[in-house]
């Protein structure tokens, strides 16, 4: 792989900001535009950019597919687990009010946060996995 210094340097500078922006979108989701899905995509874009510039192998080193698969599963579990938690606390499935019986607004807040976190995790790892799956194929003929 030819090394293009400018790209590598720029990527190195941009990476933290991309990931940070991803986190911002993630946690700002319940106040403004944003949320787990968008955040996950932005996060994944950061990793994909890294893979494009530094090569697939380095990217796989920082985010091994096995870990990504587990994170994906975990993300879904967090989402559904929140729902189960609300049920265990006496509400209906995904009834966030039940999370904080004294202050339903807070309950909503926490619930959304947890769910969006799960979504973000699943989407980020899912997107990266899809990229890896395609990029990792050998060329046919």
């Amino acid at each position, binding site marked *: 792989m030819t090394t293009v210094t400018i790209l590598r340097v720029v990527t190195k500078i941009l990476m933290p900001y991309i990931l940070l922006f991803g986190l911002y979108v993630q946690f700002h989701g319940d106040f403004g535009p944003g949320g787990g899905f968008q955040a996950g995509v932005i996060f994944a874009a950061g990793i994909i950019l890294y893979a494009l510039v530094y090569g697939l192998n380095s990217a796989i080193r920082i985010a091994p597919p096995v870990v990504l698969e587990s994170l994906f*599963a975990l993300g879904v*579990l967090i989402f559904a687990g929140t729902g*189960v938690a609300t049920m265990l606390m006496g509400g209906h499935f*995904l009834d966030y009010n039940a999370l904080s019986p004294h202050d339903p607004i807070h309950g909503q807040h926490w619930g959304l946060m947890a769910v969006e976190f799960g979504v973000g995790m699943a989407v980020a790892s899912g997107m990266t996995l899809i990229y890896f799956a395609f990029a990792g194929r050998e060329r046919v003929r």
Partner: protein
Amino acid sequence: MEHLPVLLIVVPLMAAPLCVLIRQPTLVMGFALVVIWSCPLMAATLLQRVLADGTISYAIGGWPAPYGIEYRVDALNAFVLLFVSSLGAAVLSYAPRSIAREIPQSKHHLFVTSYLLCLTGLMGMTITGDLFNVFVFLEISSLSSYALISLGRHRRALTAAFQYLILGTVGATFILIGIGLLYQMTGTLNMADMAERLRDVTGVRTVLVAFAFLSVGLALKMALFPLHLWLPDAYAFAPSAVTAFIAATSTKVSVYVLLRFVFSVFGVGFAFDTLGLDRILLPLALVGIFVASTVAIFQQNIKRMLAYSSVAQVGYMVLGISFASVNGLTASIVHMFNHALMKGGLFMAMGCIAFRLGSVDLDRMRGIGRTMPVTMALWVVGGLGLIGIPVTAGFISKWYLIMAALEQDRWVVAALVLVSSLLALVYILRVVEVAYFQEPAEGDAHVTEAPMSLLVPTGLVIGATLFFGLQTSWSAGVARVAAESLLGLSR
């Protein structure tokens, strides 16, 4: 207990990612089996409660019905849930041995995950009372079934899955358009609420267009002739366990959704009196039955033959709907169930044959009645059910269908239904003759009976077709209650 409706969906949904986390094939399978057998138990409890106390409603997130997403269980969908989950569980119990030959071990946990997701999607479509939810769950089940089909050993599984993906997505998008137009007209997504509000806008053209988009989309998903083109390849080349599962459940759930839309959302009056739906469905169903059965007769690949037979059987279900009477709907609903059992069992038996022979071609099946007597006996019982011979479940479906036709004085339809079952006789007999009255080929003389772990689930499913051919109060009885409630005659 109160959470049962949502648990039914959440349990397999959460089990799916857990399977990815566990990874180890044996553990995954054990875990999935425990989870999946809990589903029919829950569904049975639901059905029992619905029959005793009437419709159950569950508000997701605690948001009450017209605003939030509602899971709504009545006799009809509790019944569908029960048989879909039971067959899902039965086929998964059969799967470990079957996929060992057909799917590389590194993919087993992904197979189980997709399987659980597919089941979740199918049950979700059935249980939800929210239109948009139907679409979401439809896509969950479709996407996982594309993945499942593509796992087939033959490379044609890939093109089959792709073809299904294109047509399935077009169908799903049609449904999405229909739902969007309905939402535009009524401002609600809740089925019960929409049924109320649609009464004010019956004549509006948007509603008609929405109805058209929905029915075409669903017809694609349930493989109603002539929109069945994806089905034969998909069934023929998917792994045996996948074929058994999809054939037993997927199209039935789409038929259920059609029933739900036509009768619960749009109402009989609109669909049949205003639109004349029966004038479209009846000929389509009949032509479908005849064309598909005839094509089935000429198939060499027996899985493909059974696939065409499935297209024909969907015709019977739609025929029952087109009568719009209690007996007609009972026939449809009970045939959904009976056909799920028969086709599931037949494809499971095909899986046993593929397990030993590595092929499902008619030529290779010579003399198999002697080398694999139990498998073939089960196959024959399932086949007799397709013809509609008494004592098998298929007879009960035919009985109600004929009765529905006769009570509306549709002699020709009744006669055609009866004649069509003779076409089934031809394609079943063709296999029987080869299997029992021809000598095995040189290389296949040593073939032995399939292992018990395959035979027992197959036997249970086929045995159930015999049981429900005699004891019909649990099948036709429930179907009748469901049919009456769909037509608004009770509760």
